[in-house]
């Protein structure tokens, strides 16, 4: 774990230098950042753009929307002293993974805060697909085959203070696995190792037992709502099922252009 912190710490210092260029999305200047233990991966700009990941874009309304989200989320989290956040939604395909990636990126790119993005959607891990990377092992390998977490963590080249814990292949007994003591241990470790680190968990949607059983381990949650698809009933049910877990707020995804504020 030390290696991680070192790597991240180093990252931290580099980011200070790199920060003025990050808003322009210029990845070239960040290429010097190296992780000692964490495997670095190169992200293709085209891939990022194709997947609507803000790292591939310059300033625009889309990017700004994530900045607003980031500001509000961080504000609340700091107030409450939280640092683990679960991203989930009422239904499948409403953009949870994308929101998680973009939020995490937004935090990592602009604030002096290290961010760990964990793909705990064991049934259908998607983050690596979004980022266009091929992980050697995933979270499920750590949980089932005790693959050390250091081998799994990835750091996209050019983006400092941003570490990804990807999934790899879908597994079926995910709900048992996600509630296993090992997982709890992992969450605890991730959460408490560095208080300044911010951990974003990408959860399956709330229609699954996975999300419900994992939710109690995080400080707070964000619900991603897809405009025009999520019904009001679904939304109410989702909020009701999150009972007891502090809800930071909701994100209205895929909003029509007219409703952007």
């Amino acid at each position, binding site marked *: 774990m030390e290696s991680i912190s070192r790597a991240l710490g180093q990252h931290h210092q580099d980011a200070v230098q790199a920060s003025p260029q990050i808003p322009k999305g210029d990845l070239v200047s960040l290429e010097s950042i190296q992780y000692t233990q964490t495997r670095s991966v190169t992200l293709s700009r085209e891939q990022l*753009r*194709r*997947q*609507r990941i803000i790292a591939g874009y310059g300033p625009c*309304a*889309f990017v700004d*929307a*994530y900045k*607003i*989200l980031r500001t*509000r*989320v961080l504000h609340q989290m700091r107030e409450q002293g939280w640092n683990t956040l679960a991203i989930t939604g009422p239904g499948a395909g409403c*953009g949870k993974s994308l*929101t998680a990636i973009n939020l995490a990126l937004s935090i990592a790119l602009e604030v002096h805060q290290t961010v760990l993005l964990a793909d705990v959607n064991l049934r259908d891990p998607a983050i690596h697909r979004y980022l266009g990377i091929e992980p050697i092992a995933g979270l499920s390998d750590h949980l089932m085959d005790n693959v050390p977490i250091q081998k799994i963590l990835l750091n996209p080249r050019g983006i400092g203070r941003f570490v990804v814990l990807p999934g790899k292949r879908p597994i079926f007994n995910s709900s048992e696995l996600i509630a296993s003591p090992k997982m709890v241990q992992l969450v605890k470790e991730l959460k408490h190792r560095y208080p300044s680190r911010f951990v974003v968990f990408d959860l399956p949607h709330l229609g699954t037992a996975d999300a419900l059983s994992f939710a109690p381990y995080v400080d707070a949650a*964000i*619900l991603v*709502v*897809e*405009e*025009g*698809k*999520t*019904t*009001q*009933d679904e*939304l*109410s049910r989702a*909020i009701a099922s999150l009972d007891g877990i502090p809800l*930071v*707020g*909701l*994100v*209205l*995804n*895929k*909003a*029509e*252009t*007219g*409703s*952007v*504020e």
Partner: protein
Amino acid sequence: MEEKELSDYITAFRRNKPQFGAILTGILFLSLLFAALLPPTYRSTATILIEEQEIPPDLVRSTITTYATQRLQMISQRVMTRNNLNRIMEKFELYPDARQRLTEEEVIRRMREDITLDTISTDIIDPRTGRPSTATIAFTLSYDSGNPELAQRVVNEITSLYLEENLKTRTQRTAETADFLKKETRRMDKYVSVLEKTLADFKEKNLNSLPEQKPLNLELMDRTERELMQIDNEILSLEDRKFYLDGQLAQLKPDMPVISSDGERILSPEDRLKSLKTEYLALSSRYSDKHPDVIKARLEIDSLRMNANDTDGGLDLAKHLTGLDGELAALRKKYSENHPDVVNLKNRISVLDEELKKVQRTRTIREIGTGQPENPAYITLQTQRDGAVQDLRALRQRREELKEKRTEYENRLLQTPRVERQYLELVRDYDNATARYRELRAKAMEAEVAEELEKRRKGERFSVIEPPMLPEKPIKPNRPAIAFLGALLAVAGGLGYVLLMENMDKSVRGPKWVTASAGRPPLAVIPYFRTDEEVSDRQKMKTVAMLTGLGLVLLILTLVHWLWIPLDVLWFKSLRKMDSILS
């Protein structure tokens, strides 16, 4: 749950623009197709004026009094019979498809629907009631058909049917009325004749007791009464005179007294005969017939008889014979038959019988010459008396006659009231019947005139003022209207779809709805972001769609050109059509 606002709908509209467009174009296309392809319907119309009768109704009144509208409806019913329609259909070969597909009933109904009868009315003031009303002055007949020529010909046919039917109905009706009235008149005539005869019979039977005879009867009776009185007076005076004459006559002898030269009164032959007879009877009983005294007496009597009027005839002889008979009967009681007294008496009786028979024979001859009075005074008086008696008898007879007459007059007068009652009854009946008869007669004559009016086509009639024309433009369909309605429907359908989708849409749309369902506003609203690929994909799609559309249009045009109609022809055709639609 918040209410949806206009802005929601606007965004919904924006969201559903493609669907909206698809629906709009779809409906629009269909309606335009519909408007263009609906088969045209041509209508040919004939206008028929209901002309009033030529001769003013004040002069000749028609016996048909129903309203024109009502008559028109009746004629319609008669014309639109299944038979008529079938005949027309066969004649013009109408509805060839429908007749194969549908039942006869349905085809007939369709034909009835295609035939339209419209009345043209005007506001008038009814001369009969003085109230404003509407009168039908004309009507139009029209027929709708896909073929303008056919429409015209069918209307022609139907119009002539109407005209014919009207004439037929009118003539028939007036004839019926006239006929009925004629029959009634004849019946009434018979009745009146019967009454007339009854009245005449009655009059004849009660000729003298009729009420109009009453004054005459009274006068006659009066006169008779007076006459009777006069006659009574005359009778009285005549009777007085007769008595007086009788008295006078009694004092005179019919024969003049003859005094002989020696102053001795000479007996009249009758007196002499009487005494001789007595003498003779006495002699003959005493002596036989041969006795000279008897012979002398007998001769004298005979001669006297020749002169004198033997007025008493056989009277004396008969008296004498009766006396002798009584004597004979007394003798027979005393003596036998052979007693000489009895025989003697018998002889005398037989002689007397002979005598009596002789006298009776000669008397009638002699009577004429006898009894002639000779005294002139006596004769004068006698004549006067005889005249009086005769007058009296005549007067008496006349009196009887008059009395009889008076009784008759009285009877007549007594009968008059009864006769009067019956007579008046009869007269009243007769008068009534006559009045009725006269009335009927007048009506019948009027009806005859009306019939004549219809026969000569001078009554109310239908005249075609506008014969059916060949329709140049179809009345249906109203293509611009259908197209316009189609456009409206298209817009409405599109908007309706949007509205429906928006209302059915229960999903969360916009931060407002998030707030509404989650109780708090969203932390952030992430717009939908189109990646470069998506943008270029859309562009590509658009281009492809446009090209496909163009290709499709070209394909259709080519197909039309080769398979249906060359395009240049179609172009000019459609130009013409547009012209006809727009003009």
